């Protein structure tokens, strides 16, 4: 038990290294501009995602699901997604269905529960990988332009662009606040088991408390941001059609996009053919 607790607290503290997180997130956002997926038109990719993000939910045919899964796996590889994201994907799929399987066994289910759960897993995996391809593969500015073209609220595109730019700064600030709390604090001794529990509670408490200065700082910053936006006429520009047209004029559908769509359609048609044959 003690070993387990030790491992757990170590694990959490290791993962919580801010630099590691920041690097992974930045790598994910800006690190892969030169891939095949990143070069595609965002509108085409979003339309592609709408198909692979919705249709698998409604289809129970195994060969179709397997085919779609293979396709999105290839596109994910093409997009060169950061390792952390893939790890989270694996964890997410397992926690959604693997856990359910274990509990099913507990309630007297047997191996017959595997087949429907396998289909459920395939569905979940296909949908998540499709989203990983589109949302990690595209860089944020392209993504928000694509969403805007489809008539998503301006707030959402603004939030995406803002989030990607502000996040490194916010993380650094949070780290600084956290470190200053640690410097001034006196953590409880953690040799015994109860000491370890107290240590964990202490760490969590510090994280909670460091949100107090962070909230005040962020309040100041968001006022500055909004005032700067207002000076440039942001709220007027957000609803103005001419501004939107100028912003979106950079989007262009090329032969590569059409080729990507056509290959996907070909693959899906092949899968459908297989499912009607067998």
């Amino acid at each position: 038990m003690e070993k387990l607790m030790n491992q757990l607290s170590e694990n959490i503290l290791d993962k919580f290294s801010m630099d590691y997180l920041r690097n992974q997130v930045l790598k994910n956002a800006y690190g892969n501009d030169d891939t095949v997926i990143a070069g595609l038109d965002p509108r085409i990719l979003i339309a592609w995602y709408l198909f692979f993000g919705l249709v698998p939910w409604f289809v129970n045919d195994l060969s179709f699901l397997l085919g779609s899964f293979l396709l999105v796996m290839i596109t994910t590889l093409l997009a060169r997604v950061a390792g952390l994201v893939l790890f989270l994907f694996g964890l997410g799929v397992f926690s959604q269905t693997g856990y359910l399987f274990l509990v099913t066994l507990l309630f007297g289910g047997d191996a017959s529960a595997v087949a429907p759960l396998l289909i459920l897993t395939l569905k979940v995996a296909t949908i998540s990988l499709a989203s990983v391809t589109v949302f990690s593969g595209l860089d944020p500015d392209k993504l928000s332009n694509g969403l805007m073209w489809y008539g998503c609220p301006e707030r959402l595109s603004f939030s995406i662009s803002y989030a990607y730019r502000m996040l490194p700064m916010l993380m650094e600030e949070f780290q600084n606040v956290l470190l200053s709390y640690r410097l001034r604090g006196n953590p409880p001794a953690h040799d015994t088991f109860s000491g370890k529990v107290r240590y964990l509670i202490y760490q969590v408490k510090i994280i909670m408390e460091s949100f107090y200065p962070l909230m005040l700082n962020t309040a100041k910053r968001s006022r500055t941001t909004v005032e700067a936006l207002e000076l440039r006429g942001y709220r007027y520009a957000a609803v103005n059609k001419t501004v939107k047209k100028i912003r979106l004029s950079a989007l262009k559908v090329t032969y590569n996009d059409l080729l990507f769509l056509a290959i996907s359609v070909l693959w899906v048609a092949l899968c459908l053919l297989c499912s009607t044959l067998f």
Partner: protein
Amino acid sequence: MNAMQKNTITQSQKLMIFVLTMSLYGLATLFTELIPKFQVGLVEFSIEYFLFIPLTLGMLFDPLSAALGAATGELVFSEIMLGQFGGLGELEKFLTVTIGVYIAGRLVKDPKNRVMVGIAAITGTAAQLLMGTIVDIAKVQFAVEDFEAVAGLPESVFATEGFAFLNDLLFSGIFFCLLPTLYLVPKLYGKIEPLLGMAPRTAQSAVAGLNPKSVVLCLIGFLCAVTAEMAATAGMSLIDWEAEWAESGTAMAMGMVAAAAVAVIAILVIKKNAERKVA
């Protein structure tokens, strides 16, 4: 005149609240995505809900802006940035977080009243969790074929979801929503508002109080969240009908393959030609 101005919030102040909640809650949810969860026995200790951030801000400022900001922050920072956007499921999360925070924010009349702050914090959390649980059960029921036929599966879904709800409410709800909110609201009250150029919220402020109109709005929002999941059932029957059509349509599928193959070849040829012209 002066008092009137103090009680109303301008459009740009709403945007400030939106940006503030979005960045803070987004940052927090990003951490929760990255920190591994761990289990002791059946109890799952996850630092799942940093919900205290939007709860606190929703009680101190305009609840609707804070609620929308929190939901958007979660969507953008932890789902889209990490590439975990899950389609329909995100709509449900977006709406339940918005409604939970909004309810909590509207319940508090006077942020100085600690009892009311506590009740509102736990009510908002419980509302959000309960809606999530209902939608989760519905989702598994519609996604798995022959749900009732698999032995042990229905009971296990109800048991795991019900247990997760209680666990989240009693563990995350109290430690990560109730206590931090009780600590932060009185501490921030009167300090954070001037930074956004506003007067602190009082019992007389325009936004306080939960009226029938907002309750109806919340109900409509929840119905939307459920409808998003119900679309799955409707979609099921649609595909069944399509599958019947497809059975007799091997030729049809062959035609589709041929058409798609022709399209791929045509695009390749056109692309080659276009490149030659440029070169």
